[in-house]
Each structure stands twice: as structure tokens, then as C-alpha cells.
């Protein structure tokens, strides 16, 4: 509020001549605070070890046939090929992409883990979660062009040498190297409901060795094919419901 009059409103005094440099600096600070508040962050993240660009670009290309425009709108081609805008979507949704990590506590080379953030302890409902794995075809005795069939099993692995249980089994047919997805919605929903942040997975591929198939995991020297987990979630707090109504 300006102090000129008790009847004035905050925006009325803005057009008064002022020190424009100071005003700009104040606006920039206000905008920074505004963006952080909207993203439910207290301060900007400290990026000390950026994700390899190759991994990031591959993930984004795979996930978004749409294009993020200069003004922030996202063009999503529909089935007819016409572009629509994410702005048209009333719901506030989040899409979280997290890349696989590995550490010494995990029991085998096929073990990896994901740190999943629930975006500032919001009440997020996980509508879909998928693990993306890249399978590389190695030269083998099989005739070129032959489909190679393998069985991939994804287990939840307790830290250290703890027990593990099966989350998903999927038969994969491969004619060439490529990405494949594995549904993990229920498992990620459980992570969010328990309030934990870490999801340990163990990837086993039956028949891979014989068929000349190599699932690309972490520390394989192939950063652009690093496994990643995509979580689609939407807020379920009261503000959201009021806005939607």
C-alpha cells in the first residue's frame, strides 16, 4: 500500500516516477519469490552435479513429442495432428522424471534405486508410473532380423541384503535395440503413501545373455540410455478441489 491516502490501492502508486533501477531489482526479487512460491519451494535448488545432458535430452525427447514454446505453453499434438495447449488443461498435474542411481549398499549390479520427491509434501495422487529401460542388441549367433524373446522381471529390493518381491514381469520381443516401459504405478503409489522417498529395484532379465540382449543399467558408460522412472501425479489438496469446482 502507498501511504498517500487510505483509499489508494497498491497498484495505483506504481506509475509514479521512481528510481527505475531500484524498481527493476525489486521486481526481479518479487518475481523470484513468486516463482518459488508457486513451485512450493523455499529456495532455488542447488545444482552442483547436473544430470548428463545426453540422458536428459533422450528422456525428454522420448516423453514429449510436444514442444515447450518460448512463453511456457506446451504444444501437444492430438490424434488429428492438431496442436492443443497444456493451458487448456484445468487440472494441475505434475510429471516427475527421476534417473536411476546405484550405490554400494545394493546387492547386485542389476540393482538400482530412484529418489522420488513428492514435490514439497503435497497430497499427490499418482495416476501413472512407468520404468523406462533400454535394451541393446549384441551380435549373436541368431540370424540377423530374428526376434529375440526375453523375460524381464522387476523386483522391489529392500536395502542391503533384505528380502525382495516381484513387482512386474514382462515378456519383451526385440528386433532391434530400443526403449521398453514397465508399469510401476502401484509400487510408486505405495512409496508416496508411506512417505518414503527411495525406491529400490532389482532388474533381472531371463534369457538375455543367450539371446545377446543387454539391458542398459547404471555405470554402463552409456549415459544417454540411463534408466529412468516417470511419475504422473496430480494434487489432491483442498485448494485444488475448490479451483476445479
Amino acid at each position, binding site marked *: 500500500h502507498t501511504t498517500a491516502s487510505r483509499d489508494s490501492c497498491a497498484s495505483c502508486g*506504481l506509475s509514479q516516477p521512481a528510481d527505475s533501477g531500484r524498481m527493476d531489482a525489486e521486481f526481479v526479487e518479487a*518475481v523470484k519469490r513468486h516463482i518459488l512460491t508457486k*513451485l512450493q*519451494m523455499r529456495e532455488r535448488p542447488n545444482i552442483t552435479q*547436473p544430470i548428463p545432458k545426453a540422458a536428459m535430452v533422450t528422456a525428454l525427447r522420448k516423453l514429449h513429442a510436444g514442444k515447450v514454446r518460448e512463453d*511456457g505453453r506446451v504444444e501437444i499434438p492430438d490424434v488429428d495432428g492438431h496442436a492443443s495447449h497444456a493451458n487448456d488443461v484445468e487440472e494441475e498435474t505434475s510429471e516427475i*522424471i527421476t534417473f536411476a542411481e546405484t550405490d554400494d549398499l545394493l546387492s547386485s549390479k542389476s540393482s538400482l534405486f530412484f529418489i522420488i520427491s513428492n514435490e514439497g509434501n503435497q497430497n499427490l495422487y499418482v495416476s501413472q508410473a512407468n520404468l523406462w529401460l533400454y535394451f541393446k542388441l549384441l551380435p549373436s549367433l541368431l540370424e540377423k532380423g530374428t526376434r529375440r524373446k526375453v523375460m524381464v522381471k522387476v523386483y522391489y529390493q529392500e536395502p542391503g541384503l533384505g528380502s525382495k518381491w516381484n513387482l512386474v514381469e514382462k515378456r519383451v520381443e526385440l528386433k532391434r535395440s530400443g526403449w521398453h516401459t514397465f508399469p510401476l504405478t502401484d509400487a510408486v503409489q505405495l512409496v508416496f503413501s508411506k512417505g518414503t522417498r527411495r525406491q529400490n529395484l532389482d532388474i533381472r532379465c531371463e534369457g538375455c545373455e543367450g539371446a545377446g540382449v543387454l539391458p542398459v543399467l547404471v555405470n554402463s558408460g552409456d549415459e544417454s540410455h540411463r534408466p529412468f522412472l516417470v511419475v504422473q501425479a496430480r494434487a489432491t489438496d483442498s485448494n485444488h478441489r475448490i479451483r476445479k469446482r
Partner: protein
Amino acid sequence: GLECDGTNGLCCRQQFYIDFRLIGWNDWIIAPSGYYGNYCEGSCPAYMAGVPGSASSFHTAVVNQYRMRGMSPGSMNSCCIPTKLSTMSMLYFDDEYNIVKRDVPNMIVEECGCA
């Protein structure tokens, strides 16, 4: 809604673009490359309040009801506020190096009016 052009002091939308590179935020915000932090400024003389199109808010309707009934309170001057806001999609790293894509509603001021 009016765009501010410096010719009069009436309620208008001032465009204000911030390039994330200039404030050193391009290391964690992947897209877009900047933000339109537009804002509203200017005065709202009595004749501008209730003008269709520029004042379509619920508050205006309430104030107009007071005026029609001859109960216009002296302290109820109208105010230059955003009357239309739009969503902005953002792609960024969070604290755990996750890439997050979020459609943030009411991020960009598209239009200003007196209410």
C-alpha cells in the same frame, strides 16, 4: 484491457520479461527460457469501475450493487488488478535432480482491469 504505453496513468498491463539466463536461473529451469512477470498499474477513476470487459470480477459486481443502492462507501475506491491470468508450463530440476514438468495455473497476467 489496456497495455501500458506511458501516455496516461490509467489502469493498464505492464509487460515485464525476465530472462532466466540473466538472473542465473537457467541452470535449474530447463524451459521456458524466461518468465513474463507482467503486472497491473495505474489509476482507476470512478468512471472506469464497472466498464464491461475491463471489470468483470465478482468484486466489481458487489461494489456496483452497493452503488446502485446508494450505499457507496467512501473507502471503496476501485483498484487496478489482474482480470485474466494464464497457466505456464515449467520444466525444471528439483532438489533431488528430478526433472519436473508442471503446469502452474495463474502464473501470467494477461489482462488488467478496474475492480
